[in-house]
C-alpha cells in the first residue's frame, strides 16, 4: 500500500518498543534501582505518541484497512498464518485507549510503586503487557490476536501475583490465568473451525469468506459461540468472571490498566472484530446479549454489598463489560465500542483514584474504615467523583452517552425484558457507586487515629494522571457521542460495522424518552444511595437483616466461587487423585510390577523341582522321553 511506510514503521515500533523496554528493564532494571522506570516509561511514552499517530492515520483513512504482513509466521502443510498487522478505525480507537491509558498508568505507577522491592520488575511487566496488548489489537489474524491475548493473560498473571509472597495474590494470579485458559479452549477450537472452513485465519480472508456465505449457518454459530467462550474468559463474563474480583490482589495501577481499561476489553474487541461472523448468527447474538445482561445484573447485585473499594470497582467493571456485550448482542456495535472507549477512561480513572485513596489511607482498602476524605484529598475526590458520575451515567459525562445508547438499543431492538433488567442494573449501579463515593468521602473518618494522621494527598506523579484521565471521562461523550446514536464515533466506525443500526434519534420521541428514563433512574439511584449512606446510615443494616439470604448471597458473590471449588475444581482434583492413586500406581504399574513379580514367583516355585537327587533327574529324563514318544506318536498318528 502506497504511503503507509510511516504507519508500517509506527506499527512495528508500537509493538517493539515496549518489548525492548521489557527486555532491557528485566536485564538491567535491578541495577538501575530507583531509576528503573525511566527506560520503560520513555518507551511507553513514545509508543503512546505512535499509537496516537496510528489513530490519526485511521482518522484520515477511515475507509482503508492497512494490512502489513511482516513475515511468515507459521507455515506447515496446508496451514499458513503470517505475522501481520492491521489498522482500521476500530484498531484506531483501541490504540487510542490503550496508548493513552497505558502511558498514564505508567506515570502513575512511578509514584504508586515507589519504594516497592519489585520496582523494576513491575515496570518490566507493564511494558510486556503493553507489547502484548498492542499485538492483540494490531493483529491481522486470529492467531496473532491469540498470541497477544495469551500474552496479556501472562502479564495479568504476573502482575496480579506481583506480591507473590501473599498467598492470596499468588492464588489470584493462578486463578486468573486458568480461568482465562478455559475461555481460550473455546477460542482455540474456534480458530480450528475457522481454518477448516475458510482455509485462513487472517481477518480479511475469514470475513470475505463469511460475507460470501462460504460458511454454513450452523458452523457460523459454532464459531461464534466458541469465540464467545474465549471472550467470556478474557472479559470476565459469567460464568468465567470469577477471576476478576480476585485480580484486585495486584497493585492498583494494574487493576486500572489491565482489569479495567484494556485487557478485559479484549473480549469485547474480539467479538466486535468478528462482527462479520456474528451478524450472520442470530443465535450467537442472542447468547451474547443474554450473557451480557445476566452478567451485568449479577455483578451489580454483588457489588452492592462489597466493602473493599477495589472489589466494588471490579464488580462494576464486570457489570460494565456485561453492558458492552449487551450492546454487541443487541446489534448496537458502535455503542458497545463507544462504551468501551469511554469505560476505558472512567474506569481507569476510578481505579487510579481508588489507588490514590488506598495510598492515602496507608494501604487500607475497606470502605468501612474510610469516610470524610472529601477535604483531605481533594484532587482525588473531585476526579473520582467525575469518574463515578461517568460510570453511573450521569449527564453529561462520557458514560451517560454511551450507556444510554446501549440501553436504548435494547429497547429499540424489542428486547424489553433486557431493557428492564438493564434499567435495574443502571439503578443498582447508581446505588453502589453512590455508596462508594459516600462511604469514602462523606461522613466521619472511621479509620484508626494513627492512619488518620497520615492521610495525605498523593504526589503529583499520581494526581496529574488522575486529572488527565478525568478530562476524557467527563467530556468524551460530548465530543464523540453527540448527537446520540449518530455521533462522530458512529461515522468513524462505520467502515468496520458496515451494517449500522439506523434508528434515527429523536429527542422528542422514543429516544428522548428512553434517555430521560435512564437519567431519572440514575438520579433516583444516587438519591437512594445518598439517603442510605449519608442520611440514614443504619438502614442498610436493617435491610440486610430483613432479607438475610439476599444480603449474604450478594456478599458471598452468589456462592459461585464455592460452587466452582466443588464442581469443576474438586471433581477434577478428585478424579486426578483417583487416576494417580488407583489407575497409575495400582493398576498400570501394578500390572507391570506384577508381571515382573510373577516371573520371580514362578522361578522360585520351580526351584524345588531341582531336588538335588540325581535319580529325580533321571526320572525326568525317562519320563520326558516316554511322554515325547507318546505325544509324538499320537500327533503323528492322527
Amino acid at each position, binding site marked *: 500500500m502506497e504511503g503507509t511506510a510511516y504507519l508500517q514503521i509506527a506499527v512495528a515500533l508500537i509493538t517493539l518498543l515496549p518489548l525492548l523496554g521489557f527486555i532491557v528493564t528485566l536485564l538491567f532494571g535491578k541495577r538501575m534501582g530507583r531509576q528503573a522506570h525511566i527506560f520503560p516509561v520513555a518507551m511507553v511514552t513514545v509508543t503512546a505518541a505512535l499509537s496516537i499517530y496510528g489513530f490519526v492515520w485511521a482518522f484520515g483513512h477511515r475507509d482503508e484497512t492497512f494490512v502489513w504482513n511482516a513475515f511468515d509466521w507459521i507455515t506447515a502443510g496446508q496451514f499458513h498464518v503470517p505475522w501481520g498487522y492491521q489498522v482500521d478505525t476500530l484498531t484506531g480507537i483501541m490504540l487510542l485507549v490503550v496508548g493513552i491509558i497505558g502511558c498514564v498508568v505508567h506515570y502513575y505507577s512511578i509514584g504508586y510503586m515507589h519504594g516497592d522491592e519489585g520496582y523494576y520488575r513491575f515496570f518490566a511487566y507493564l511494558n510486556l503487557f503493553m507489547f502484548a496488548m498492542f499485538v492483540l489489537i494490531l493483529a491481522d489474524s486470529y492467531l496473532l490476536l491469540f498470541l497477544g491475548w495469551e500474552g496479556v493473560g501472562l502479564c495479568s498473571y504476573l502482575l496480579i501475583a506481583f506480591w507473590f509472597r501473599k498467598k492470596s495474590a499468588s492464588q489470584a494470579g493462578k486463578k486468573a490465568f486458568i480461568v482465562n485458559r478455559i475461555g481460550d479452549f473455546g477460542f482455540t477450537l474456534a480458530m480450528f473451525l475457522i481454518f477448516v472452513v475458510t482455509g485462513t485465519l487472517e481477518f480479511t480472508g475469514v470475513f470475505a469468506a463469511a460475507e460470501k456465505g462460504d460458511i454454513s449457518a450452523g458452523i457460523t454459530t459454532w464459531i461464534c459461540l466458541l469465540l464467545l467462550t474465549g471472550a467470556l474468559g478474557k472479559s470476565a463474563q459469567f460464568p468465567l468472571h470469577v477471576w476478576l474480583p480476585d485480580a484486585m490482589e495486584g497493585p492498583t495501577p494494574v487493576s486500572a490498566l489491565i482489569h479495567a481499561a484494556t485487557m478485559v476489553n479484549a473480549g469485547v474487541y474480539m467479538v466486535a472484530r468478528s462482527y462479520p461472523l456474528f451478524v450472520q448468527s442470530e443465535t450467537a447474538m442472542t447468547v451474547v446479549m443474554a450473557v451480557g445482561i445476566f452478567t451485568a445484573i449479577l455483578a451489580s447485585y454483588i457489588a452492592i454489598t462489597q466493602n473493599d473499594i477495589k472489589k466494588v470497582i471490579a464488580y462494576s467493571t464486570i457489570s460494565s463489560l456485561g453492558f458492552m456485550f449487551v450492546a454487541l448482542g443487541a446489534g448496537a456495535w458502535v455503542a458497545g465500542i463507544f462504551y468501551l472507549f469511554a469505560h476505558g477512561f472512567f474506569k481507569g480513572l476510578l481505579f487510579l483514584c481508588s489507588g490514590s485513596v488506598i495510598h492515602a489511607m496507608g494501604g487500607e482498602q475497606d470502605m468501612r474504615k474510610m469516610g470524610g476524605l472529601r477535604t483531605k484529598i481533594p484532587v482525588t475526590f473531585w476526579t473520582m467523583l467525575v469518574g463515578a458520575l461517568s460510570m453511573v451515567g450521569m449527564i453529561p459525562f462520557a458514560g451517560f452517552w454511551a450507556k444510554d445508547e446501549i440501553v436504548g438499543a435494547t429497547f429499540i431492538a424489542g428486547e424489553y425484558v433486557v431493557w428492564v433488567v438493564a434499567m435495574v442494573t443502571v439503578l443498582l449501579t447508581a446505588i453502589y457507586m453512590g455508596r462508594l463515593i459516600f462511604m469514602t468521602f462523606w461522613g466521619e473518618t472511621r479509620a484508626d487515629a494513627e492512619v488518620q494522621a497520615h492521610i495525605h494527598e498523593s504526589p503529583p506523579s499520581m494526581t496529574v494522571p488522575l486529572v488527565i484521565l478525568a478530562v476524557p471521562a467527563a467530556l468524551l461523550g460530548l465530543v464523540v457521542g453527540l448527537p446520540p446514536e449518530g455521533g462522530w464515533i458512529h461515522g468513524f466506525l462505520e467502515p468496520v460495522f458496515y451494517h449500522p443500526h439506523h434508528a434515527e434519534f429523536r429527542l422528542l420521541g422514543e429516544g428522548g424518552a428512553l434517555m430521560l428514563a435512564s437519567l431519572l433512574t440514575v438520579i433516583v439511584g444516587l438519591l437512594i444511595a445518598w439517603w442510605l449512606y449519608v442520611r440514614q446510615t443504619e438502614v442498610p443494616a436493617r435491610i440486610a437483616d430483613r432479607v438475610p439470604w439476599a444480603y449474604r448471597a450478594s456478599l458471598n458473590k452468589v456462592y459461585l466461587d464455592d460452587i466452582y471449588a466443588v464442581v469443576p475444581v474438586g471433581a477434577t482434583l478428585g478424579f486426578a487423585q483417583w487416576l494417580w492413586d488407583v489407575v497409575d500406581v495400582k493398576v498400570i504399574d501394578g500390572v507391570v510390577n506384577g508381571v515382573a513379580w510373577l516371573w520371580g514367583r514362578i522361578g522360585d516355585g520351580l*526351584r*524345588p523341582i*531341582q*531336588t*538335588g*537327587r*540325581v*535319580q529325580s533327574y*533321571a*526320572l525326568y529324563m*525317562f519320563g520326558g522321553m516316554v511322554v515325547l514318544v507318546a505325544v509324538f506318536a499320537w500327533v503323528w498318528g492322527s
Partner: protein
Amino acid sequence: MNALFWWLLVAFLLFSIGAFGVLARRNVILVVMSLELMLNAVNLALVATANFRAGAEGAGVLFALFIIVIAAAEVAIGLAIVIANYRNRRTVQVDTYDELKG
C-alpha cells in the same frame, strides 16, 4: 510280528528294567549295574538286527562290540567316581548326594 521284533521286545523290557534300577535303587553301585543292563539291552537289539536285517553287513555286530568296550570304560570311570564320592561322604546312597540343588 516278525522275529526281530520279538527280540526287540526283549530288549525293550530289559532296557526298562535297567531304567527302573537307575531310577529306584539307592545304592549307587546298583545304579551302575542297572546302567550296564541298559547297555546290554542295546546290544541285544543291535545283534538281533544284525542277524535279521538284510544289508546290515555286520555293522550291528561291530557296534555291539564297540559298545561292550565302551561299557567297560564307563564302568571303570563310574566306579572311580563312586569311590571318590564314597571317600568324601562315606556313603553309597545316591539320594543323599543333594548338596547341589535348587
